[in-house]
């Protein structure tokens, strides 16, 4: 189908119908596919899933061949829409893990393939999906406290240790959120937060309360430990996305080093933990 052809040039009713159905331009189709892929990566989806989503959406909009390569920080796509080839490229910045949004986006991509919305309709749908899956501050605070409470207890602490751990988790979470909003380097932010966590636990130790400082700190570590990144990195690596897998693995290792350094500095300053 030529670019310059308009609806009026076509007399054949059947052909007209086809044009009306595929009236969404290939530019819009590529835009929709790329936006979906980008968002899936941003909220913690695997590379494989992002690529598959882009491939499916492009195919649904009539692409004959779709070549897509995503790594964690970028997506490159070339789609061939019946003799009209489109290439697009975008930079992805990794955001906060939001598994609810990932599920919503996954559902949305299925819907897009089924109803093939126009760009405006898509933006409205996307807006709705993002709005209904944004995570509230209270939910996150409760989550952070529960993680510390649960894991300090699980790893062998007493209930008192668990409660103190949850108490320290709150300011840690608050500072981490503020720092990431202020665009602080993620690794430095983790270092600062863990240093705070260490100092908090050691100060509690100084008050003479009968508690196990190790357990308190372990509970707080579980809040920042790069478990998700590590799990996703392994899945990417084994799924054949070596670049993304290594990318995530490096992030996880750097995070682990930052966490260890944060606590280590606190312990060194206070002259030993136990």
């Amino acid at each position, binding site marked *: 189908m030529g670019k310059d052809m308009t609806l009026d040039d076509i007399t054949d009713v059947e052909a007209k119908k086809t044009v009306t159905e595929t009236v969404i331009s290939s530019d819009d189709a590529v835009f929709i596919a790329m936006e979906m892929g980008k968002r899936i990566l941003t909220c913690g989806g695997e590379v494989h899933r992002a690529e598959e989503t882009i491939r499916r959406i492009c195919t649904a909009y009539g692409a004959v061949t779709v070549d897509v390569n995503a790594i964690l920080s970028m997506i490159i796509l070339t789609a061939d829409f019946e003799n009209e080839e489109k290439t697009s490229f975008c930079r992805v910045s990794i955001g906060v893990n939001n598994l609810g949004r990932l599920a919503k986006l996954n559902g949305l991509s299925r819907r897009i393939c089924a109803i093939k919305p126009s760009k405006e309709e898509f933006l409205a749908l996307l807006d709705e999906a993002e709005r209904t899956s944004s995570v509230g501050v209270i939910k996150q605070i409760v989550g952070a406290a529960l993680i510390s409470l649960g894991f300090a207890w699980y790893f062998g602490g007493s209930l008192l240790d668990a409660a103190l751990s949850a108490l320290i988790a709150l300011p840690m979470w608050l500072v981490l959120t503020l720092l990431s909003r202020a665009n602080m380097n993620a690794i430095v932010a983790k270092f600062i937060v863990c240093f705070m966590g260490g100092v908090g636990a050691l100060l509690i130790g100084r008050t003479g309360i009968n508690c196990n400082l190790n357990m308190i700190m372990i509970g707080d570590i*579980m809040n920042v430990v790069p478990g998700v990144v590590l799990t996703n990195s392994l899945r990417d690596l084994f799924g054949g996305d070596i670049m993304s897998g290594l990318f995530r693995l490096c992030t996880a290792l750097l995070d682990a080093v930052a966490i260890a350094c944060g606590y280590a500095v606190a312990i060194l300053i206070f002259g030993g933990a136990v």
Partner: protein
Amino acid sequence: MITEEIIRGALIMLAAMIGTLGVAFAFNVEKRVVGWVLLASFLCCVAYDTTVALGGGLFVASILGSSVTTLYSYVMARLIKTPVTVMIIPGIIILVPGGKLYYTMLGAVSSDMEMFSRYGKEALLVASGLALGIIAVTAISRPINALLNRILREKNNRI
């Protein structure tokens, strides 16, 4: 004696559930999925802690824990229609060796090489077991998924 052990085990499970619930909150897991995620974590905890208690070793326990959870996640993700990642990540979080990493760091800081190497090795063992479990199940799930999709498509075509 045995009841004491059972109560202790139940309390550990409860602690793991609370932690997993926290992860589900923090990562904004959908409400309808939270219950299934908790069950994933429960299965992981049972498989891991039972194996450790029976003297199976950390590595085997970790492989068992992660593979059971991953297998369950793949099945449930299909049934309740949600991405597998949403089930696996919170489900498997109890295997992330946060405690062992902490003791490794503590060993390094306090120049206790015995502690450093012991916990460092344990953390590596658990983490690699975790990886192996996920990898093994993912590897077999792809062809099975493809087969299931083909069967479903043929069924739909016949209707």
